[in-house]
């Protein structure tokens, strides 16, 4: 690899955001090199500065941001000195291409696929429309879009999310760029599609000899796709090196903590590690270790001095601890094994019998009615005290089922029995005492106009339980349970982090002391380290309060971590149901097998690249 030329070299990149409260250095002193055909993964949680780095390279920074760098060179030519016009003409889209996260919004809905694909090539690369069209067809075929000629005249809404992302990739390849920047390219996609897209990117990279920067929060995705990895935290690269080395033998306390937070698919699930706290906003000059506020091994000197960079150009980390000292640190993940409660007998707490749901939609007043069979004879039983996981991809009907189970939407056939009673005929108060939901997005599940105290006490309010004093006491009790400090009582949701908000949502659900929590993707909007905190919290609450969980998720690793039994949903049907361990180890249905084989695994790093 050493003889390959360096495609991209970034030296001391800095991005400063001018905010109302002061200057925020979103990226500080970031340097890395990339050789032809090499892929680097930039990993970090939200707010770590990874996307800012990508946007800075593409000059797509928001208006309040200022960019500074010692040097940014593409194939030996400085690109940070080019003016914006030159950059837009000859670099962006020509030599560097970008793939964005949201395929639903990154294509313009009013132009045909063909026009969007060929526009830049005709405008800037000087291809004739005919040649550009031929190349577009060739590329669409290459990225695995069936009937590419026909597709050229179609519009983005006629394509699925995975297909749109393939089109985006084809568009990025139109001008044979030397570097592709992919910012969370598969985060919005289903896991089976994610696997295909990642594989496609890897193949294309080999075929065209492009370098790639993959930006992601998902360590497992990095593990199976890139050569080297840079871990970012608080705007800095805290550790970098060859992918398998960093993942198998992390040095920086943050990397160690982060890896301990990731639920693994192999072996018995263990309690997840936790990085306490949240990413701090670092205003002004930072003359201390960025991780010092959350580090378990922090020393006084870390708070007053920048940590030294240890290691060589290949593998380095920024920490005061020497490699020998790091070797002696206790493991970041506790050794405590988790055993999801297995409940073999007993009556069902909630039972669904032959649920059907249809969605009808009619185009215009006189159009034909189309019927979508969203749920097809779904039956399941959840016993008191267990964790039942409903697994499936988007469109499988799992959220529709959850709404029906919660009594929020009527079924078109079949019944739901909660504690032996039909859920629709039940008194709202009684239902609320038996079952409470926790939603995916803690940003939309809390009323932004209410304080935390009001939000948590709301169920008591609705049912007129207790007086002001007893309500306040109940709120404080439940806040202690979920680990919320008392001082946030009068905060508004917008003042809290995602993890804290999800704790508030859990507290609100718990205040009625329900038996069953229906958690719809409770952690998928959260960072890995926050996900670990919430998963641990849910496990603790179950142990202490004997709660029953219905967990709805697409994340197989989370299922492996917490579920006792699972049901796999596909196109409105349950295709496989049973004990979690058995199904995850020996799936019987073809779809379950496909699903499991698509899950990216951390362990893959070692085997693939060594």
């Amino acid at each position: 690899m050493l003889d390959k030329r360096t495609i991209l070299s970034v030296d001391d990149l800095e991005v400063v955001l001018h905010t109302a409260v002061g200057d925020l250095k979103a990226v500080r002193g970031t340097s890395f090199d990339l050789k032809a055909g090499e892929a680097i993964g930039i990993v970090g949680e939200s707010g770590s500065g990874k996307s800012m780095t990508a946007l800075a390279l593409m000059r797509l920074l928001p208006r309040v941001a200022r960019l500074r760098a010692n040097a940014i060179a593409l194939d030996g030519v400085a690109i940070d000195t080019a003016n914006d016009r030159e950059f837009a003409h000859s670099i962006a889209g020509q030599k560097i291409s970008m793939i964005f996260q949201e395929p639903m919004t990154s294509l313009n809905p009013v132009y045909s696929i063909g026009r969007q694909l060929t526009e830049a090539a005709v405008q800037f690369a000087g291809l004739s429309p005919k040649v550009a069209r031929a190349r577009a067809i060739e590329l669409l075929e290459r990225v695995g879009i069936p009937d590419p000629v026909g597709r050229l005249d179609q519009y983005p809404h006629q394509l699925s999310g995975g297909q749109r992302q393939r089109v985006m990739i084809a568009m990025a390849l139109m001008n044979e760029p030397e570097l592709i920047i992919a910012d969370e390219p598969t985060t919005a996609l289903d896991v089976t599609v994610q696997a295909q897209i990642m594989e496609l990117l890897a193949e294309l990279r080999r075929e065209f000899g492009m370098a790639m920067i993959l930006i992601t929060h998902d360590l497992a995705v990095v593990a199976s796709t890139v050569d080297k990895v840079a871990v970012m935290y608080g705007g800095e690269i805290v550790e970098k090196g060859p992918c398998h080395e960093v993942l198998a033998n992390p040095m920086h306390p943050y990397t160690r903590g982060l890896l301990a937070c990731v639920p693994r698919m192999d072996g018995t699930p263990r309690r997840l590690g936790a990085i306490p706290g949240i990413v701090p906003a670092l205003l002004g000059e930072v003359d201390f270790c960025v991780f010092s506020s959350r580090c378990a091994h922090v020393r006084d000197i870390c708070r007053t001095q920048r940590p030294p960079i240890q290691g060589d150009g290949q593998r380095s980390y920024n920490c005061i601890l020497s490699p020998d000292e790091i070797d002696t640190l206790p493991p970041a993940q506790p050794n405590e094994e988790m055993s999801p409660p297995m409940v073999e007998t007993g009556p069902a707490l909630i039972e669904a019998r032959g649920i059907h749901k249809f969605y009808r939609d009619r185009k215009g007043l006189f159009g034909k009615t189309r019927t979508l069979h969203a749920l097809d004879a779904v039956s399941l039983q959840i016993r008191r005290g267990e964790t039942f996981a409903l697994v499936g991809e988007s469109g499988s009907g799992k959220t529709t089922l959850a709404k029906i189970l919660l009594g929020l939407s009527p079924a078109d056939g079949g019944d739901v029995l909660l504690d032996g009673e039909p859920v629709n005929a039940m008194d709202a108060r009684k239902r609320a005492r038996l079952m409470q939901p926790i939603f995916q997005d803690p940003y939309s599940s809390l009323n932004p106009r209410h304080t935390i105290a009001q939000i948590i006490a709301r169920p008591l309010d609705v049912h007129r339980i207790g007086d002001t004093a007893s309500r306040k006491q109940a709120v404080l009790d439940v806040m202690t349970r979920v680990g919320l400090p008392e001082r946030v009582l009068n905060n508004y949701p917008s003042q809290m982090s995602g993890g804290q908000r999800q704790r508030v949502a859990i507290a609100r659900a718990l205040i009625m002391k329900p038996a069953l929590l229906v958690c719809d993707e409770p952690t998928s909007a959260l960072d890995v380290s926050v996900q670990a905190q919430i998963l641990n919290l849910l496990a603790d609450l179950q142990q202490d309060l004997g709660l029953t969980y219905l967990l709805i998720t697409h994340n197989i690793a989370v299922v492996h971590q917490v579920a006792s039994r699972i049901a796999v949903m596909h196109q409105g049907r349950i295709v496989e149901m049973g004990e979690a361990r058995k199904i995850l180890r020996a799936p019987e249905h073809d779809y379950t097998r496909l699903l499991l084989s698509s899950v990216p695994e951390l362990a893959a790093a070692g085997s693939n690249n060594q």
Partner: protein
Amino acid sequence: MTISTPADLPAASEAKTPTPRALMLRRALEHKGFIAGVVIVGTLILVALLAPWLAPHDPFAQSLPHRLLPPVWAEGGNWDYLLGTDQVGRDYLSRLIYGARVSLTIGFGAALIGMMIGVTLGVCAGYFGGWVDHSVSFLLTAQLALPGLLLAMALVFIIGPSVWVVIGIIGVLHWTYFLVVTRSATQRLRSQDFVAAARAMGATRWQILRTEILPNLSSQIIVIFTFELGISILAESSLSFLGVGIQPPTPSWGLMIAEGKQALFYRPWLVILPGVSLFLLVIGANLLGDGLRDITSPQGRN
């Protein structure tokens, strides 16, 4: 096992967070537009309330010897009549001061009536959807298709003009903005998870509308309210100008402009003065509304 080790706790944000009220006050004091709006609207309200004490003359007292005096700064003006007099010799300053009463009453009254109608219909249409939405949308289309001023003129003509009739009619004709804005905002809010959470905790529709939906509409409602406040005052002016609004001798700014138009070319102050007052009130109301929105919006709470 303990529930959460201290290390598990989310860390404190760097600075201690001040109470929401203190934050709001601070934002209010930093918001120049809001302060200007408060000062303008506050002064006008005070002037209207204290009219009997502030007005130097009786606004209805005619004095033909003193008719059409110019303001004090113009040639021939005198200090007895600071802003001059009108065609029948009534003190113009006193009439402006009393006119503030009528204009403000009509502005607030009509905007309030419009708000009640528009917000009720908009929230119902947005939340319930289906046939409710269809009927409300039909009503909206019907209202939009009618020429407002003509309708108002016809109604006033039929019912008979008085301040309260004018308020009622202007209010009943100015709810469309409230409806359009609250309807779409409610549709958006309805699909939010916190509404689903409220339903799951057994909240009734009324409880959901009152505590989950309405508070989130407040900033939009405030903005539309101050906007409609200005529009209603202008509508009153148009009606009065056309002779079917406030009836003489009651002083109203719109009426004063109407009465002044005959003398527009040789006594322009008769039109300019009430015009400027009207302009100030409308600007003040809009500044106030925009300021309130910026100050109370939860986005600003970050």
